[in-house]
């Protein structure tokens, strides 16, 4: 049981390039989330999904896109990368939306845009 797996672990992009951050979970969780973490700023929600085919914007969605075609996978797409997107990205999943909503996080993807 691997939990939440994120790939790649590190990536350097040039301004204007695009890439997809991969996230997969093997816990059969319906809820999945993408966060970015910047130093001293906590975790900011980018997008989230409550099930396959359903996604919604979080606090900082601009410059990103997501899709959720299966329960297991929730990729995050960066189009036209900008230096402001330099950050550490975390994917998380949870079984419940309510109650003891424990979010399980992946190990993160560290992205630099130069």
């Amino acid at each position, binding site marked *: 049981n691997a939990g939440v797996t994120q790939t790649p672990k590190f990536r350097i992009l040039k301004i204007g390039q695009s890439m997809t951050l991969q996230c997969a979970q093997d816990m059969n969780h319906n809820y999945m989330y993408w966060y970015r973490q910047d130093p*001293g700023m*906590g*975790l*900011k929600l980018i997008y989230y999904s409550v099930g396959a085919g359903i996604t919604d914007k*979080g606090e900082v969605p601009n410059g990103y896109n997501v899709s959720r075609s299966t329960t297991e996978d929730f990729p995050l797409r960066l189009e036209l990368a900008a230096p402001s997107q330099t950050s550490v990205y*975390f994917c998380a999943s949870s079984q419940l939306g309510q109650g003891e909503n*424990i979010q399980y996080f992946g*190990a993160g993807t560290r992205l630099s845009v130069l």
Partner: protein
Amino acid sequence: QQQVKQSPQSLIVQKGGISIINCAYENTAFDYFPWYQQFPGKGPALLIAIRPDVSEKKEGRFTISFNKSAKQFSLHIMDSQPGDSATYFCAARVAGYSTLTFGKGTMLLVSP
């Protein structure tokens, strides 16, 4: 705007001491308050959580104190150990939603 304000930004505690991290909120619709622990190079992991119908929850050396009237909650780490050195995030969730709003984090260093 949903906000959770966390303090201090960083904290240094001697081994065996008590670490205290505070959070405050304004939105009375929050109904779930978890604390997450993050070690360098790792993702956050749930440490302990509380609902607003109780004033305190204890798990081992970790205790959440909750003051509903003041809209504040805090994490107390008793007998702090060097292995507790990590970044701690408080968070809150609005009733009826699945998403969490996180504080900015507290970097704790427990000196040997």
